[in-house]
């Protein structure tokens, strides 16, 4: 949030003996203090209003704000637009970065000597600040745009024509330095850097993108997601763990990552078809129901650890209808895991028709369901 005028709060005049003096002093305090108090409160409230354009990204649906940048403080809106254009990054990503770096505080500082809303150190400011004021919103955002453009240029060759990857590598270069990105030929295997990229791309979608539209850098699939909204697959559930991805640098070769998202309502909750699907098969060992979206783009999906398998191959299930019941059935054991829904998604037309055209967990076709469920309005609260 841009700096408020809180330092200007008025104080009553000193009281030096005598009731008359007290009354005069009190009157002076009221005359001076009330307008100042109102100004401070108004400034604070106005600031808050300019920040909270939307309670959350999903609330922008009715305003048809899909993809619009939301929740940016007024004073930062135009400078962030310009910085995004210069840097080649999405506005929402720029907003997410500035929030993470300084919470839009022009006076933010750090132990490392970083200052201002974009948290430049004096050394980097000397290169990109062009003599401006490190605390000034326009100056700092303009410098930020130049700096991010330079970083983007240094990692561009690693991304090829993958725009999503380029955003992620640019963020990694900002966090760990472009040399580290070039050495790793990707996001370096530093926990801090991987967390940073994940946090910024996630925040860009969930905090700054109207209708929770996925933003370049945080997309798990680049194609058209199809018409209409989806239904939450586990109503009342909570997110417990996310998609782990594959071939993550620095991890041991035996590390097979968690290839879906886990949602939990504690057990016994209905598991719902998020969209119209046709059942392609079941996996009895883990009580998974496998399905394929009836409409484009034809994602395949998996719902695992159900209490029982109550649907059959070829069965059509409408969006919003129950597929099964949440439980912990895993490895042939009804209590093999704590009760939850493990949900997977697969790239359309992937798998070369093996297994009768049915995708399988860990078949190389998995994609992260989270940004897609969020964009389709099917994410848990």
């Amino acid at each position: 949030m841009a700096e408020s005028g809180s330092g200007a709060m008025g104080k009553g005049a000193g009281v030096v003996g005598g009731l008359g003096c007290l009354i005069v002093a009190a009157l002076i305090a009221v005359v001076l203090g009330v307008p100042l108090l109102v100004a401070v409160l108004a400034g604070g409230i106005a600031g808050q209003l300019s920040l909270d354009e939307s309670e959350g990204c999903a609330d922008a649906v009715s305003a048809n704000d899909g993809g619009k940048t939301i929740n940016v403080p007024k004073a930062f809106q135009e400078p962030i637009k310009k910085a995004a254009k210069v840097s080649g990054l999405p506005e929402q990503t720029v907003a997410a970065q500035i929030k993470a770096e300084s919470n839009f505080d022009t006076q933010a500082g750090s132990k490392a000597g970083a200052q201002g809303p974009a948290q430049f150190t004096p050394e980097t400011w000397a290169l990109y600040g062009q003599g401006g004021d490190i605390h000034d919103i326009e100056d700092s955002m303009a410098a930020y745009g130049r700096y991010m453009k330079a970083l983007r240029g240094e990692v561009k060759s690693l991304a090829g024509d993958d725009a999503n990857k380029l955003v992620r590598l640019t963020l990694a270069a900002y966090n760990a330095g472009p040399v580290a990105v070039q050495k790793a030929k990707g996001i370096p295997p530093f926990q801090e850097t991987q967390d940073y990229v994940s946090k910024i791309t996630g925040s860009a979608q969930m905090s700054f993108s109207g209708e929770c539209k996925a933003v370049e850098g945080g997309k798990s699939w680049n194609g058209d997601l199809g018409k209409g909204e989806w239904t939450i697959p586990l109503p009342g559930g909570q997110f417990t763990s996310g998609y782990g991805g594959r071939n993550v640098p620095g991890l041991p070769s035996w590390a097979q990552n968690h290839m879906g998202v886990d949602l939990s309502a504690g057990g016994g909750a209905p598991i719902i078809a998020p969209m119209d699907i046709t059942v392609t098969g079941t996996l009895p060992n883990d009580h998974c129901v496998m399905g394929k979206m009836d409409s484009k783009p034809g994602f395949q999906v998996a719902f695992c650890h159900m209490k029982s398998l109550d649907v059959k191959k070829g069965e059509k299930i409408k969006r919003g209808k129950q597929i099964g019941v949440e439980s912990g059935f895993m490895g042939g054991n009804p209590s093999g895991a704590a009760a939850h829904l493990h949900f997977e998604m697969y790239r359309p037309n992937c798998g070369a028709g093996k297994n009768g055209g049915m995708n399988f967990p860990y078949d190389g076709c998995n994609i992260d369901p989270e940004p897609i469920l969020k964009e389709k309005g099917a994410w848990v609260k």
Partner: protein
Amino acid sequence: MGEMRRFVPLALVLLCATGCSDASEPEPVTTSATTSASTTRDLADGSCPTTRNVDRSDASATARAYASIGHCWDSTLDENTMTGVLRAKDLMSVSWYDQQKKGSAARNTLQAQFGKAAKHEGYSVPEAAPTAGDVDRDVAADKAVRGITTSWHWKTRDGSTDIPGGRDQQIIYLEKHGGQWLVVGTQTTTTEELDKA
């Protein structure tokens, strides 16, 4: 502006001539005078968990301890979240530690949150717990995966109200060597900050 455009590439060339990696690396994590003055302070007033007394024969206990130690930060002493992670050195394989050490100068993922806490000389108070779901796996007798969800808030030293922190979920990979479990890799699947602007 034209002069600046010429100046910037020249500056970069000069810097590159003396060590390009330094010019292109992230904001340096340097020790300032302020840090020197505060190094006599006890890390988080002595509240951070340590590697002592961790049951290394148990993969779950080792993973949980790693997450707890890695999420304990003192905003007046620590430059970034990695500083906490590196304090879990005894629970980490040599290669995983060395790899993370190389990234110790990375920018702070929680920069704004640390800054807010620092205004009140705050330190984090972590709570690590097993993640519900199917993340946990015993891959082999000497290989295991554990899901740990860690929440934290910031305790202030200046008497002001504690500051909200956040929550994240990590997948932690462990191997057993010489009867003791070691962390050989981690991946964070989600990070959520609870502080609002």
